[in-house]
């Protein structure tokens, strides 16, 4: 059998990203000022983003194992934005936490590479490898503050439950492989159709196991136990990174696997995901009400947002998926922005992560309070912010697909969420400052806040462009 060189153009962004991550890892030895590494990472990711637009990049390669299409490209844009914003908000923060090591940047680049591979996976083997590359890098990042017990604990819990979930994923993959004789997503669907495997218990079992594993990754209830602890204990910049990147990657593979490999048995996986979505929205929003730590509160909020985005998957229509992608992009901006403000409050000897630290922030630091107000409004879903548009399109897609009752439930929980988001706004604007909070600012932080604020407001007022991008991105 002659060995044919596969077409490498579709994986050009991944190749660039791999080289960049390896380069940063080596450069760390020679460069003393770690800020330089941050700058190099941001520039390198920008180069990767250029590779998204190379000719011939939208193609399938490695015998269908790697699919680079509009769908994966949209997610790769989210991942690139995620990593750039994370690097921008972490530069000064790492100094404050006294963990300014170069491996940090290499690890988040490797995690992003894993996400990119996940979004493009056309085969369960590639999907597994991408998922593990992302997960292993993120476990280390969660425990990056080595001397801090909380960070260790976050890493440990994330690691134990994450590896537990991947074992479930593998068992599901092995059942699907045994049943269909292939791991290629397209061919799995073909075999299910040709051999009439729909409804077989082994296939249902395999689907349940895969759904459970992905629910762990997107922190959907009842598989969310790791999320609040991991989010609270991890370094705040990594909490921001984890709550956007791996979640979006999880949604990318859910959309890919369930709509590409299991479209014949849609009725069955919809019955798995509907209760998960309802529980996720319920637990996320209700438990968030009683939180006193803002990182933990945003962890529950992130769980709740996964519930809304699941509605887009449940519809199964191109419109639903496009609205889910759209929501992930919007969520990336508003969540990153909120975490950027939280990181600003952290200074030497002051944690700044309890909700009462925000009392009277509008009097001492009006600009920071105003920015937090925008992000909290957006997370609640109040126009004219992007969060409203994200929810609007998801709910509209779900209503068009005939899930009106599900949308009603989602809207009720969304209204409950206003209580805990707006409580922060109330603390900032209607209470008197107790102690003087010093902000830790830096130019890169300012840039990150500017990007997120402008994006949240611009998408909120002119959503057509993003919606169009997400809609045409879908095959």
């Amino acid at each position, binding site marked *: 059998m002659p060995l044919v060189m596969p077409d490498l153009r579709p994986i050009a962004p991944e190749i660039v990203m791999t080289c960049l991550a390896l380069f940063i890892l080596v450069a760390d030895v020679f460069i003393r000022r770690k800020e330089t590494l941050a700058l190099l990472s941001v520039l390198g990711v920008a180069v990767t983003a250029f590779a998204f637009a190379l000719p011939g990049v939208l193609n399938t390669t490695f015998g269908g194992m790697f699919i680079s299409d509009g769908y994966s490209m949209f997610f790769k844009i989210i991942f690139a934005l995620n990593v750039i914003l994370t690097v921008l908000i972490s530069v000064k923060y790492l100094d404050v936490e006294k963990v300014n090591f170069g491996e940090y940047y290499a690890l988040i680049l490797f995690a992003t590479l894993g996400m990119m591979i996940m979004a493009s996976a056309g085969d369960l083997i590639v999907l597994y490898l991408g998922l593990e590359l992302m997960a292993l890098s993120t476990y280390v990042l969660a425990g990056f503050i080595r001397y801090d*017990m909380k960070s260790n*604990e976050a*890493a440990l819990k994330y690691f134990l439950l994450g590896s537990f979930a991947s*074992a479930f994923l*593998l068992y599901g993959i092995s059942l699907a492989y045994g049943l269909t*004789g292939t791991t290629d997503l397209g061919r799995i669907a073909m075999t299910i159709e040709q051999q009439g495997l729909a409804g077989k218990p082994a296939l249902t079992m395999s689907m349940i196991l895969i759904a459970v594993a992905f629910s762990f990754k997107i922190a959907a209830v009842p598989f969310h136990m790791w999320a609040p602890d991991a989010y609270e*204990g991890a370094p705040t910049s990594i909490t921001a990174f984890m709550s956007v990147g791996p979640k979006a990657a999880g949604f990318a593979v859910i959309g890919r696997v369930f709509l590409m490999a299991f479209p014949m048995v849609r009725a069955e996986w919809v019955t798995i995901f509907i209760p998960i979505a309802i529980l996720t929205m319920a637990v996320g929003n209700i438990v968030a009400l009683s939180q006193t730590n803002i990182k*933990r509160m945003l962890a529950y909020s992130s769980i709740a947002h996964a519930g809304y985005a699941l509605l887009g998957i449940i519809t199964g229509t191109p419109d639903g998926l496009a609205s889910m992608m759209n929501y992930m992009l919007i969520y990336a901006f508003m969540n990153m922005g909120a975490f950027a403000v939280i990181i600003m409050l952290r200074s030497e000897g002051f944690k700044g992560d309890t909700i009462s630290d925000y009392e009277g922030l509008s009097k001492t630091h009006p600009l920071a309070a105003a920015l937090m107000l925008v992000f909290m409004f957006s997370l609640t879903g109040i126009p004219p912010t992007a969060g409203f548009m994200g929810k609007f399109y998801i709910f509209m897609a779900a209503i068009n697909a005939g899930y009106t009752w599900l949308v009603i439930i989602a809207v009720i929980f969304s209204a409950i969420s206003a209580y805990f988001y707006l409580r922060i706004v109330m603390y900032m604007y209607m209470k008197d400052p107790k102690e003087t909070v010093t902000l830790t600012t830096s130019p890169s932080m300012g840039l990150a806040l500017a990007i997120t604020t402008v994006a949240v407001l611009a998408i909120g007022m002119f959503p057509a462009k993003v919606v169009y991008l997400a809609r045409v991105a879908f095959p």
Partner: protein
Amino acid sequence: MVPLNWYLMLSAAVFSIGVFGFLTRRNIIIMFMSVELMLNAVNISLVAFSHYLQDLRGQVLVFFIVTVAAAEAAIGLAIIIALFRNKATAHVDDMNEMKG
């Protein structure tokens, strides 16, 4: 020739032992070993499927799983050691800095 079902039953049994061990044991190292047991249960079933289907994909996946499991072990033990330096315990019930 050993029928495929026997391998699958063995795999399911080992996987269940792993799940049970993970959920009931409270020592981090043993929980971690249970996860490894689950991964190896998957390997048994993949190799069995691969043999009966006369298809190499399953065995390729097994190689990847073994490799990733090794990387996972390295990272897991590193996390456990980092934790042990701060708090000399290997018991998950002592990991209770965060609640709620």
